[in-house]
Structure formats: structure tokens, C-alpha cells
């Protein structure tokens, strides 16, 4: 009998061919696979989903050129590292993102305690951090309840709009 590994390889392989449905029945196997129509083309092109459609459409070399200023002299200062992409294993978590551009602080002021740590249980409405923008300190409240699984940004770092700040285990 075909084992799961074989079936999995079979599906992966035929998915790249670009079909919409396959039905197999043998003495010891009954298999039906349907492929979503819209995705077939992408799958056929090389298998994997591409996170940033940009990279498919424009020569990927353009992306590589970021941070290579024409004037060599101008490279003296290091561009700020804004964004850290979420990793694969973080997908099961809920993400709390920054609603604004500013500087991320984990406590209201240097002499006050930290709002939250990894492992803390939070409820909706709990203040998680402040983001300073134009001298204003904006309290960021949790929109979900759960347990803080990861804090993605260092205290005092700049953050951009929509940047993931916390992962929460629901």
C-alpha cells in the first residue's frame, strides 16, 4: 500500500503540472485531490507561494540594490532596521501591530515598571507599550486576550506603521 509520504510526494509533484482535479482508485487506494483554480498558474510556475508579489513581477535584483547608495561616501551611517518579518513558526499566534510610526517603549517612563513581559496573561484593553511620535506618548492597548508569546521590537526602537510588535497566544 502507498504510504502517506508517497501520496504527499505524488500530490506535490502533480500540483506543479497544473491540473484542477485528480481521482485515483486502485485496489488499495482511493485518492481525490482538487486544486484551487486561481492558484494553479502560480503553483505550476515553481511550486511555492511567494510572499511579496513584487519579487515575482520586477527583476528581483532591484530588491537587492536597496541600501546601495550611488555615492560610496554616503554609506557611513547605517539605515535603521525597521521591519523584522514574522517567521514561519509564528503563524499560529495573533500579531499586534503598530498603529503608527514612532518610537516603541515598553514602560511609560524610565523610572516606571515594564508594561508586559513574555508569558504575561493579557486581556483586551490592557496597555502593552507606548509609542512616541512628535513628543506625544500614545498608549497601545491590546485588542485581544491571551498570553504574550514574543516581543518583537527592542525597547526604544523605531517602528513603522503596521509593524508587528507582539505575538499573542490566544
Amino acid at each position: 500500500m502507498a504510504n502517506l509520504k508517497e501520496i504527499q510526494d505524488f500530490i506535490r509533484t502533480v500540483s506543479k503540472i497544473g491540473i484542477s482535479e485528480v481521482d485515483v482508485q486502485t485496489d488499495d487506494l482511493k485518492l481525490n485531490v482538487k486544486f484551487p483554480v486561481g492558484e494553479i498558474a502560480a503553483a505550476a510556475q515553481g511550486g511555492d507561494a511567494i510572499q511579496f508579489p513584487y519579487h515575482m513581477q520586477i527583476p528581483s535584483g532591484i530588491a537587492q540594490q536597496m541600501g546601495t547608495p550611488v555615492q560610496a561616501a554616503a554609506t557611513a551611517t547605517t539605515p535603521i532596521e525597521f521591519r523584522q518579518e514574522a517567521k514561519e513558526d509564528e503563524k499560529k499566534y495573533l500579531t499586534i501591530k503598530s498603529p503608527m510610526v514612532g518610537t516603541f517603549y515598553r514602560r511609560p517612563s524610565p523610572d516606571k515598571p515594564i508594561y508586559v513581559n513574555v508569558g504575561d496573561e493579557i486581556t483586551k484593553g490592557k496597555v502593552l507599550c507606548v509609542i512616541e511620535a512628535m513628543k506625544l506618548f500614545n498608549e497601545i492597548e491590546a485588542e485581544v486576550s491571551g498570553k504574550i508569546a514574543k516581543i518583537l521590537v527592542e525597547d526604544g526602537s523605531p517602528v513603522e506603521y503596521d509593524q508587528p510588535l507582539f505575538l499573542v497566544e490566544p
Partner: protein
Amino acid sequence: MFNKILIANRGEIALRIIRTCKEMGIKTVAIYSTADRDSLHVRFADEAVCIGPAPSAQSYLNIPAIISVAELTNADAIHPGYGFLSENAKFARICTEHGIKFIGPTEEHINKMGDKATARKTMIANGVPITPGSDGLIATVEDGKREAMRIGYPVMLKATAGGGGKGMRVIRNEEEFEHLWNAARQEAAASFANDAMFLEKFIEEPHHIEIQIAGDQYGNVCHLSERDCSIQRRHQKLLEETPSPFMTEQLRHKMGEAAIKAAKAIKYEGVGTCEFLVDKHRNFYFMEMNTRIQVEHGITEEVTKLDLVKEQIMIAAGAKISQRNYYPQAHAIECRINAEDPFNNFRPCPGQITGLHLPGGNGIRVDTHVYTGYKIPANYDSMIAKIVAVAQTRAEAIDKMRRALFELVIEGIKTTAPFHQQLLEDPNFREGNYTTKFMEDFVIKNPEE
């Protein structure tokens, strides 16, 4: 000189500014909304920061976010491009308050020129010809009717805060005055939160000709000759050229001097444009001054070999301008390629560009932020490319543009390129025989019908 410039804009003008910064060895910070993640300006800048969601009010018009990014990235100047915050006096002031150089005029200059009734007064005081009109703002319908009678119909009713054709009405007789007055005021209130109105003599079939100027921080102003922008549809420019086919050497001299006078009147700093209406007797009237780089600045660059964005940056950094004026050494035409369906009332057509081939070679310049696979967001304006053709004569420039449009292929969306091709074949256009009324009579032939 600046170390790092934040570009508070998107699309082709953001890319345009990044290019000049790179050439000058200045680092760049791009800002972008979530709708523009895949934009070229994001890729080509040294740093890029997402500042908000797709709606402009929360991203490209979001002053606190933009100032925050400038501070976080240590940008020492902000270039606003055109549109968005480029003529926003409050933004210019906040930049200054935060020790960031606004690359453009001061808050005061913007206020003086942005309010049209004030600008008219300044022009009168400085001997710049303006269209006969009401003495300042009009309070009531009755005042308006009296003033209109004095000026003589037809008159143009305008919102003082207006722009882009909004809050404007042509009134041809007293009977229609009240109705149009109400409509224009409501529109102005909705568009600009300001329903103050004034009246001007309406010039029939005028030429829309603008003079590019540049002024430095030391009171020097020069002009860079004219651009003819009479080919417009509902006050949206479709094609611009320099020199204007209607221009004479004498008129250029007089209009250039008037534009310089207008700029000197307010000690203008930066590059700017004085827009004039020119009637068939070559009388010209000051309309307004745009206190920013214009979309169509490229044609002036091509015939003067200047880089106007570089001039802006140099002026902002305190450089002195040369004391001479610049005259066209060639003929340049620009076609604005918009994602609009010219056979369907220029309906916007956002969508994905599935195939793209841009023209090139002798005398062709392309400024675009799009590429194969680019998705045009529905949130912003529909211009996707500017094609400029330069040649020694107007006839050659027209034929070069036709060749370039023939080579241009944009698939997946509809564009105005087929309209431009028809326009360039029109006998009246080819003879340079056109006014701002041209598009009202121009019939676009749908080849599929």
C-alpha cells in the same frame, strides 16, 4: 548640503526626486502607505518607512507620521513633490519648527500665493496684470451681481481656496447667477472647507501658458521661459509643450518679466510657476502661482538642460541662483499617460499592468514608477508615466512622440495613449492652433466602433 532627504510623496515624482538625490550623493528616505509596498520609490530609496494605510489622509497627508519618520531617520530636509502636502503652509511651518528644511517656499509664501484673493491683491500692488475682477471677496448674491455687471459678462466665479477646477463656474448672464453661485459655494465648502468666493472676467478661448521661475534666499529671481498647457480637459492637463506655438519673443519677454515681478513681490524662494491666461490679442493675465515643482517640469529641463529638482535642493541649501534667464534651446512635448479609458469619458482604470514595453532612443525621456506586474492602487491619481519627446523643431518633436507612443505597450489596463496618438495627428494641433477650448470640440474616435 543636506545629508538625508525624506521624500513626502509617492509615484513617479518620488522616484524623480530619489534619482537626483542619488546623483547628488544625498541619502533618501521613502515613506509609503500599505497600498504602495511594491512601489519603486520604496525600492530605490536608501530607507523606506510605512506610515499608514492606503487612504491619503492617514498616510501621505499624515503630518505627525511624516515628521516622526524624519526625526527617527535623522533626515535634515523634506521634499514634498507635487500634490499632497506640497502647498500646505502648516506642513512647511511644522517642518521648520522641527528643524527640518522644507524644500520649497516658506509658510508665508504659500499663504500669500495659496489664497487667490490675496494673491490678486499682491499682483495689483506690484503691477502684474490680472484679469479684471471683484475687489476682494464677495459677501452676498447681490454684491456678486453688482460686481458682475461692472466687470461685464461672461464672468468666472472662483473659490479663493480653489484648485483642480473645483468651486469654479462660468456665468454668462444675470439670470443664471444665483443658481451657479449656490452650486459653486457648496462645492467649495465641501472640497476646501472654505466657501469664500470672488469674481473674474471670463476670457473666451484663452491660452493657458505658465512661466517657470526660480528664486533664491537672497531675493534673486530668474525665469526659465514658458510651458503651454492649453490642452486640458476639465482643467486637467493632458499634454504640455515648450516653447508654446502661440509665443512670440516679445510676449515671452513681457510674461517672463511679469512672473519675476510676481515672485519678487513676495521674495519668493524655490522653484515655482506663474500661470497666466493669454487672450487672442496676446494680452496676458496672472491666474495663480504654484509654489512647488510641477508635473510638467521635465519639458523645461529638456530644453534648458537644467535639473529643476537639483535647483530646488540647491536653493533650499542656500545656494545663489545665476542672474540670467533660460530660453528653450529645442522643442519638448510631454504626454501624461494616465490609467484612464479615453473612449469612456476618461474613466479611471486602476488594475494590474500585465505587459509593459517603454519607448527609448534619441530624444525620448520616460519618467515612470510602474513595471510589468505593478498594481495601480485605486487610492491615488491615475498618472502612470510621463513621456517627453525632444527635437529641434516642433514638427519633429510631434513625430518623435508619435513614434514613441507607437512603441509604448501597456497591457492589462486602459490608458490615455490612444487619445494622445489621435491628438498628435489632429491638423489643428499640428499647426499649433489650439486654446483651452480645444478639448471641448475634440472628438475621440474609438477604433473598435
